[in-house]
């Protein structure tokens, strides 16, 4: 089997920065209890501890690196615990999109005269709908929860993946090595799964990396509108939403999760750029 490109991302400056960014944020999320001084939902005498500026200590001698919100909860603790929710929801949502998209794209690339236009038609139809309209509608169907956000993100994000997988698989199937492995006795399914799909994966991976950033942003957007993760659970979207109300007297509450979100998306973009050019 031909190894077309086993891309080496270590030599690309962009992907180094991207991997470093995402790596730090993922580690912080994983070890959230170790890097915080207090739990994310802990609120004590609210009037005494609310709206503390970053780098200050409260009356209980608890240090707050990013200050506190209007309920006296530690912003840094909520940020790193919220990272778990936001990252997980984004990655899982994109994974669902990826599975559906690859299945439909591959089926369309190898399908019959009836199946292919039908599958492509459904894909194009989905691409034509503003995603936010679908998101709003689907998210309002059931009581809001993190699981619902994953499902909704997955169901609304697979269309570009399917389009790309279709194009890549078609291009791979037309290449001479496919004829060669067919002559060696490989069946249709084996050719598709073992040869055509893996060889066309690089741009799909690039799209998926971008998609993770996108999904995290949309999760935050849904939670921001109150349709996603529900308070008091911390996610970056709920944090931005609560920061919006205190934008005048405690701007750090909304700034911190937004900057974290931007850093994650930048990391994803840089890695995606490097994968695409590799």
């Amino acid at each position, binding site marked *: 089997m031909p190894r077309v490109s086993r891309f080496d991302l270590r030599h690309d400056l962009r992907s180094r920065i991207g991997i470093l960014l995402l790596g730090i944020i993922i580690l912080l999320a994983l070890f959230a209890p170790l890097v915080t001084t207090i739990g994310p939902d802990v609120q004590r005498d609210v009037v005494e501890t609310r709206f503390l500026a970053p780098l200050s200590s409260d009356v209980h001698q608890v240090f707050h690196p990013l200050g506190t919100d209007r309920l006296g909860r530690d912003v840094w603790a909520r940020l790193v615990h919220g990272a778990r929710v936001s990252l997980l929801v984004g990655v899982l949502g994109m994974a669902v999109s990826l599975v559906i998209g690859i299945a439909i794209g591959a089926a369309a690339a190898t399908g019959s005269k009836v199946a292919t236009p039908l599958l492509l038609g459904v894909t*194009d*139809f989905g*691409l*034509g*709908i*503003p*995603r*936010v*309209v*679908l998101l*709003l*509608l*689907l998210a*309002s*169907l*059931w*009581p809001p929860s993190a699981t619902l956000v994953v499902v909704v993100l997955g169901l609304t994000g697979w269309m570009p993946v399917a389009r790309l997988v279709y194009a890549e698989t078609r291009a791979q199937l037309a290449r001479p090595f496919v004829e060669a492995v067919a002559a060696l006795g490989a069946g249709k399914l084996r050719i598709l799964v073992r040869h055509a799909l893996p060889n066309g994966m690089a741009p799909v991976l690039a799209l998926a990396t971008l998609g993770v*950033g996108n999904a995290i*942003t949309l999760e*935050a*957007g849904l939670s*921001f*509108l109150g349709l996603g993760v529900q308070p008091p659970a911390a996610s970056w979207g709920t944090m*931005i939403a609560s*920061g*919006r109300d205190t*934008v*005048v007297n405690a*701007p750090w509450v*909304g*700034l911190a999760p*937004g900057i974290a*979100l*931007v850093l994650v*998306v*930048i990391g994803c*973009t*840089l890695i995606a750029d490097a994968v695409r050019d590799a």
Partner: protein
Amino acid sequence: MARGLLTGVLRGVAVVLGVVTLTFFLLHLAPGDPVERLLGPAAEAEQIDAARKTLGLDQTLPRQFGQWIARAARGDFGTSIAHGRPAASLLGEAWPATALLVLLSIVLSWTLGIAIGALQANTRRTALDGLVSAVTVALNAMPGYWLGMVLVMLFTYQLGWLPAFGAAGVDAEFLSATGRLTDRLRHLALPLLTLTLIGLGGTARYSRAAMRELRGAPFLLAARGRGLAESRVVVRHQLPNALVPIVTLLGLSLPALFSGAVFVEAIFAWPGVGQVLVQAVQARDYPVVMAAATISAILVVAGNLLAEFLVTMVDPRIRHAAG
């Protein structure tokens, strides 16, 4: 050309019909009842039943859908359940605000983005290119509602230059004509800046990539060989050839722009279609959601068609092959 346009229109009609059908059934299957919200918690069961009957909500879903299609085809989008006014006039009041915002931001972000991308693709100063790239990647990464919030923080609360929300001040009625215009522009500034900055990042990235691919192309070398000024080579030879992928991608990004507008309108309380849509979804105001979904689907489809048409305009090869 005409044939391509026709299939495009037919496909567009199919998409709009699909969106409308999907929206209708999802919306009516969603939990939450507009009548219960309308009548309040003290309403008795008989009153709720009576109201449902008046609104035609007691009939089967397919039947309601058929009636809705029949009326919508005649341009009648029904009456808002929450406001008791025609859904069409609610949206009619909202759409100029959205159109103003979206169109201006498209023009600004496309021209600025293409110019920045062209400069980046041709500069010899790699540090400058890297710096601008970092900025465009960051802009591209920002969610609109958050960027909006940061801009409000900066320009309204820190600097006190611009109003944070709405389309006009409360005292707008009492201002002179020029005063009213300034007031409108000041209110427009922050939402427009937000949408433009967000669009700018992506556009500059697309244009940089498309222009860069052409950098060593023989026809550019030939143009330089003929002694043309560098600016003329870029504007007259490189840019037109890079426009096809740029315009195609921008056409595809229209739905995303619309999505961005929904969030930005929510942040700035901008009285546009997006805000009407979000409020109507929350109130389960069926006629208004349906009307807004129909109109936004038509706008997005029309935008895509326009982009396809623009592609044939900027590329004579496609124009002649299709014609």
